[in-house]
């Protein structure tokens, strides 16, 4: 049976599924229920000087009927007294000694960091997560993403935390930067044992078109919130992969951003995450979503022959490259299986209006025809086709040897003739 246990920067967990620091990890009672349901670990909702929250706090982005496909919030860090949180951390650790509790922290001064870290580790924290990512509210007070966006500040505070802490320190990075790499490197220079990313993305989730107020609406006003949920996964995957492939980085990664199920988790792992953190899917469906996450991951590992989670971590990183390294002479064309085609002709509309005008209706048939001499192999038809397995992208042998753009520029490697250039 595959071994689901993980080690992220020295934080050991029975499985790679952690609750992210967020409303589902707000209290001891919640986290204990989550562990009952099968979650491996939990990042306790950020401790700091307790704040007060507003009504309302959340906004949902419905896409094609999928409610909460995107999600945002303007909630801040914990609004419960620090001592209550610490007491509950201790109680939870007592009941669940083998499930790591990582305590998320956000304070300002060196002394405050020293004190909160001491109290957290005394309460039994297995690790710390420095919240340098929150993009709303706290950043206006000089914390959260205000720290994460400044590598020098990130490095300094990380170094304080590592100095004071007796347990591993993860730095949670904000995606509200143009390039994630300098920020990950700053955390590394500060001595972090790992990073977690991404925090939420600065956003306006929607606008109430009858009231003329953005959402979530607080009376007659709104503010920017943190965007998360399934819709952000592509952004998160890219940032995780950018750090994972960075030479000289090498820190363990806890991946966050739109993980709904085991498939999403596997993608994060293949791009370098040893654990994943989940919030939105739990907010939308509850803790029991973890059952299929664990089950599905185990079945996947069994099918692929991975004995341990770490055997698969980073497997797809070598295949994430620069555009200039792609083989320009690799050629594919779309093929339509007439037996599977249902005649919707979505591919015709997509190709004609959105791609390269090479899929045409045929007289006397609903099955369209691909003009392979014009098809650039863009994939659009396959993406819109609702009939499973109907459109495939087939490799075409064109007699040209592999050649990248970089090869072409540096030593004139021969490129195949352009297609689709009507």
């Amino acid at each position, binding site marked *: 049976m595959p071994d689901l246990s993980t080690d992220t920067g020295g934080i050991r967990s029975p499985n790679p599924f952690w609750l992210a620091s967020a409303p589902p990890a707000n209290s001891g009672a919640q986290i204990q229920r989550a562990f009952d349901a099968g979650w491996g670990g939990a990042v306790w909702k950020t401790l700091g000087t307790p704040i007060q929250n507003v009504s309302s706090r959340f906004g949902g982005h419905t896409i*094609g009927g999928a409610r909460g496909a995107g999600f945002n919030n303007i909630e801040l860090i914990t609004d419960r007294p620090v001592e209550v949180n610490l007491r509950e951390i201790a109680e939870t650790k007592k009941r669940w000694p083998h499930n790591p509790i990582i305590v998320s922290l956000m304070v300002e001064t060196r002394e405050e960091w020293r004190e909160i870290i001491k109290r957290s580790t005394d309460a039994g924290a297995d690790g710390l997560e420095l919240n340098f990512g929150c993009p709303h509210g706290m950043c206006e007070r000089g914390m959260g993403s205000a720290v994460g966006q400044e590598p020098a500040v990130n490095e300094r505070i990380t170094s304080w935390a590592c100095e004071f802490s007796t347990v591993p320190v993860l730095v949670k990075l904000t995606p509200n930067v143009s390039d994630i790499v300098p920020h990950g490197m700053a955390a590394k220079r500060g001595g972090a044992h790992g990073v977690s990313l991404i925090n939420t993305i600065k956003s306006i989730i929607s606008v109430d078109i009858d009231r003329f107020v953005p959402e979530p609406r607080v009376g007659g006003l709104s503010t920017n919130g943190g965007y998360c949920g399934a819709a952000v996964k592509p952004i998160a995957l890219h940032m995780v992969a950018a750090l994972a492939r960075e030479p000289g980085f090498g820190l363990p990664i806890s991946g966050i951003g739109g993980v709904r199920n085991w498939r999403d988790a596997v993608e994060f792992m293949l791009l370098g995450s040893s654990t994943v953190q989940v919030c939105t899917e739990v907010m939308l469906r509850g803790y029991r979503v973890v059952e299929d996450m664990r089950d599905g991951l185990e079945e996947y590992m069994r099918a692929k022959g991975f004995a341990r989670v770490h055997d698969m971590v980073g497997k797809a990183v070598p295949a994430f490259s620069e555009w200039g390294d792609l083989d320009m002479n690799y050629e594919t064309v779309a093929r339509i299986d007439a037996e599977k085609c249902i005649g919707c002709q979505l591919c015709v509309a997509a190709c004609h209006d959105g791609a390269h005008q090479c899929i045409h209706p045929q007289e006397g048939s609903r099955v369209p025809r691909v003009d392979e001499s014009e098809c650039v192999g863009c994939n659009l038809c396959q993406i819109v086709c609702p009939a499973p397995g109907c459109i495939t992208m087939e490799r075409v042998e064109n007699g040209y040897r592999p050649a990248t753009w970089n090869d072409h520029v540096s030593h004139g490697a021969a490129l195949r003739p352009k297609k689709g250039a009507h």
Partner: protein
Amino acid sequence: MPAELPAVRSEAAFEDYKLPLSPAQAVVEAGRCLFCHDAPCVTACPTHIDIPQFIRKIANGNDRGAARTILESNILGMSCARVCPVEVLCVGACVYNDLEEPPIQIGKLQRHATDRAFEEGWRFFEAGAPTGRRVALVGGGPASLAAAHELRRLGHACTIFERRGFLGGLNTTGIAPHKMKADRSLTEAEWVLGIGGIEVRTGAEVGRDVPLADLECEFDAVFVGIGLGADTRAALPGEELRGVQGAVAWIERMKLGDAGLADVRSAVVIGGGNTALDAVRELLALGVPQVTMLYRGSEDVMGGYAHEWAAAKDAGARAEWRAVAVAFEGAGALERVRCARTDEARKPIPGTEFTIAADLALVAIGQAKLGVALAGLAGIRVEGGVVRVDADGFTGRPGWYAGGDCANGGKEVVNAAAEGMAAARAIDRELAAGGGTGRKDKNGA
């Protein structure tokens, strides 16, 4: 217009067999539509409503735009949403059928948008600038209503001649009440007339009260949409017995008054078309304990829709396939129908006779073709009682057009609507080109 319907009507007992979608259901169902390119559902619709477009509008919360899209192509879209055999038209063509997923419920979505338009009083169309041309529409059914509305948009004055006291034709008198009741048809007719400028002369039968040829004196063009006539008679011994009736006549009685079923224990419906199936389902729904359909062919060749027969069977209908009535028997009133099995040529086989006890027999073997009324006008060809027309409904006589059952032999409401609209556009083109009947009073009017 409109005539008041009697307070007590047997059809009032029926409930809709296809319940309307709730607003939330409509959005979910609309969200399933793939928005096909050159969509098969549009091709399958005789009026070519842009179905993917109106469904997308519902999905995006634009019901008003959806209703406009529907009614732009088919002004009778509200009734068609209820009465169309969508199973063999748009819904039957939905590509989801090939994906083995439930097809989009196009009829129900169309009903959602058009009912909303009626409830909210949305109006989308205005009469065109007056052309000074006048068009007569003979018959007040779906074909004429659709033609008149389109002619008004094009600016022509319209007069509908209707022999009954109300409009709607078979949409009012003949639709199975689980699909639509008479009052809904009258509401729709009034809604169509809301464009203004359509004069309605009810109780006026052209050919009797108004000589056909006189129309050419008053009007630049004539559209004939007179539908079908009385039930074809069985021409069998005993057909004069009390309890032997034409099915179309009985359905009209049931819709507009009392169906007269108080003492009926067993009914036989003769025929295998959709009128027969409607009658069978209606008799069962109104509580007749035993209803038998008698059809001279086998089940697989019946003219009625398979989905309708399946529903009739579910409701408890019996059928005698490959059997014909040979006589109605009884003393004054019908007591039994004498039947015989048929051979391959659908002729009675001697010695195979049997009887079915019955106190009601409805004959649903067709209706008279009324095209013959036009036979006297030079240039108009009538074949088998059906007016011959081209794709625009043109009869061959300048200014004369026909559509609906009198020209297509008996099809759906949606066909009548499409033909009426096509004819209206052709009339407009002909008049613009200086054609037409050569109206006699043109200068004096």
